């Protein structure tokens, strides 16, 4: 801390690192080692039930991924899952945030409701939707039958497409609130003069949205995109409880396969390689988002 007394730039440096020291220490002590260790393991043949066969094999685990059917299929499912969940989340969250940004009676109530799914642990979310989608006694079947939309109870989760879509819907419900809050927060800071100016220009609602709202929302959207992509890629709890990855491979996402590989097949080496591929993909996508916004000249980390 001696630097504090010296000239400003140096002082800032020392002070900044000192301020970061506690957080960095905790992260370094607790996560850095497991992260480094998991990368090291990903370079090994390392199945926990065969300790004697443990061996350093370089990048063989990664190379094997190229012809690993289970992995490729899971990657495809995950990509689709991220696309659907992310798309639905962003669109729904944006509309809901726009609604909440208006003044109307019951706004407070709606905001409270919008926070509700956030409070639900993924496992409980899975259980809840399981009772709703249940083929024999589920609420969805009951509702649709009473509304006359279907003529008998369906087993919603038994076809590949059905299971996939309903799982994605359950996931979206759970992850919506966080995005809504961030977007709503962004909206609430838009100076009303901007809208006034646009109104004077007689811009239509759509035009106003594109010209005023959207540019202003780029930064919160970026946060939503990065976090929700990360979440959707690693979605596990809800799917695990709802379908267990089935039928067949229809909802076996890469995260689910990874957990299965490490914990059920005890293949720690391969599972770690999976995990690092997921990390690389999320990182690439995040960098992509940031780059995209950078080009718009609107971004500073």
């Amino acid at each position, binding site marked *: 801390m001696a630097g504090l007394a010296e000239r400003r730039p140096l002082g800032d440096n020392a002070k900044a690192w000192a301020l970061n020291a506690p957080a960095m220490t905790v992260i370094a002590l607790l996560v850095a080692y497991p992260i480094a260790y998991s990368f090291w393991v990903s370079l090994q043949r390392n199945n*926990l039930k065969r300790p004697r066969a443990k061996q350093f094999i370089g990048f063989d685990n990664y190379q094997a991924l190229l012809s690993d059917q289970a992995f490729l299929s899971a990657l495809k499912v995950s990509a689709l899952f991220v696309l659907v969940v992310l798309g639905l989340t962003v669109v729904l969250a944006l509309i809901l945030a726009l609604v909440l940004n208006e003044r109307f009676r019951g706004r407070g109530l709606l905001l409270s409701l919008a926070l509700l799914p956030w409070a639900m642990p993924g496992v409980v979310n899975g259980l809840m939707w399981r009772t709703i989608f249940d083929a024999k006694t589920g609420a969805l079947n009951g509702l649709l039958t009473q509304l006359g939309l279907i003529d008998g109870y369906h087993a919603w989760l038994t076809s590949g497409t059905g299971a996939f879509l309903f799982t994605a819907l359950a996931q979206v419900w759970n992850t919506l609130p966080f995005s809504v809050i961030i977007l709503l927060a962004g909206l609430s800071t838009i100076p009303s003069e901007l809208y006034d100016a646009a109104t004077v220009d007689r811009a239509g609602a759509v035009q106003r949205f594109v010209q005023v709202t959207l540019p202003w929302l780029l930064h919160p959207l970026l946060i939503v995109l990065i976090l929700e992509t990360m979440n959707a890629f690693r979605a596990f709890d809800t799917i695990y409880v709802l379908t267990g990855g089935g039928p067949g491979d229809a909802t076996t996402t890469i995260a689910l396969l990874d957990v299965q590989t490490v914990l059920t097949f005890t293949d720690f080496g391969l599972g770690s390689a999976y995990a690092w591929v997921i990390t690389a993909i999320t990182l690439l996508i995040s960098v992509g988002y940031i780059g995209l916004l950078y080009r718009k000249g609107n971004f500073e980390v």
Partner: protein
Amino acid sequence: MELNRRQILKYAGLGLALPAASPLLAACSNDKSGGTGDGSVKFEGWDYEAALVQQNLDNFTKTSNIKVNYTPITSAQYVQKIVAEFTGGGGPDALYVYDDSLAAWVEGDYLQPLDGMAGVDEVYDAIYPGNAAAMTYQGKRYGLPYYTDSNCLTYNTDILAKAGIKKPPASLEELEAQAIKIKNAGLLQYPIGVPAQLSDTWWSWVWALVFGSGGNMFDDQQAPIMNTTDTVVKDVFAWLQQAANKSKVIDPACLQLLAVPIDNAMKANRYAYTIGARYASRDYNDATKSKAAGKIRMALIPSLDGQVHGTVSNTRLYALAKDTEVKDNAFKLLTYLGGLDADKKPYTAKFWFLQRGLGFAYKSMATDPEVTASLKKFADPAIYAHLGEIAKPRNVLGVPWYTEFEIELHKVVQGVLSNQTQPSAAVASLAQTVDTLKKKYN
């Protein structure tokens, strides 16, 4: 003090973790496993009837003065958690083991053989050979029996009677015909239910159907035969496909049902047939829990030709950890739970049968009057015994890739049930899976 493997692992863990800080950390470690010094035994099992287990353990402590720290673990994550504990060097002293996991856990150095310990030979002489084989790996004996069971066809006599059916089916064709009859009588839309949601536990009913028709997926060298010399697997798949998609007698909702909801449906008269463990019938026939009480019976597994019969059995065992520091006490606990008591009676095995109907490995229990009296309340003793005699364990449990194969089997069967996969493609893909797994594990 001698360093044993557990301690070495512990220090290795430290070394890996934080070289600089290790002396500090070792001081604040409060590792309790096996090291409390009062000879207490750390015992873990999956959480089936944990309260009853505790009650039984209390009884053990009272008579033996040995303390037992019992931790029940959620059954769905039992295997994973035990693997994590042993990997970390903090496993229990004594534990439940699925015969499915035995080979892997021996290979992983978690367990020690019981050969030569007091009373073990006696136990192995007193149990059925199939159970003895399931607890033996590479010539060594690793466990004392917890329970064993074989699969049967379970049916609801009331529903069958309403459809004018007098006898349970002997062949699969007959099963389908009867189910159609029930369906057409408007009694049930889908008379047959089996648990077919993906899970980490084995699908006994698939193996039961294959063994039931005298087939097998593997020969005795664990080479896959489901695609070559053995046609039963393919024919069973073809039957499943037809029953699920053409005659529509198997409930399509099965693909999202685990074992518990199937049990509940049987108890609520919502299925006429299921295939599962014999002991489930006790619950189905228990009036305090089931609306179907008194109506549920068991039969042999229907086969392709209706002549051959067979079924699959499983064995759950109590085993001893390799690194236990309280070996004598842990073995005493094992003997109390899975062995014979001072009167040469299998005390706990009988306790479980009388309390919950769990199948027994001890031959003598079949003629025990108390046991037969209790059995008569939920099953026909002759059929029950017959199933026990013809049951075989899976002959592929000794391979390191068994779990992977089982999970793949579930996915393939789901494909057949939902008409996504043809039977011939299904068996071909299973054989292919075995090939890939074998390569991976060499």
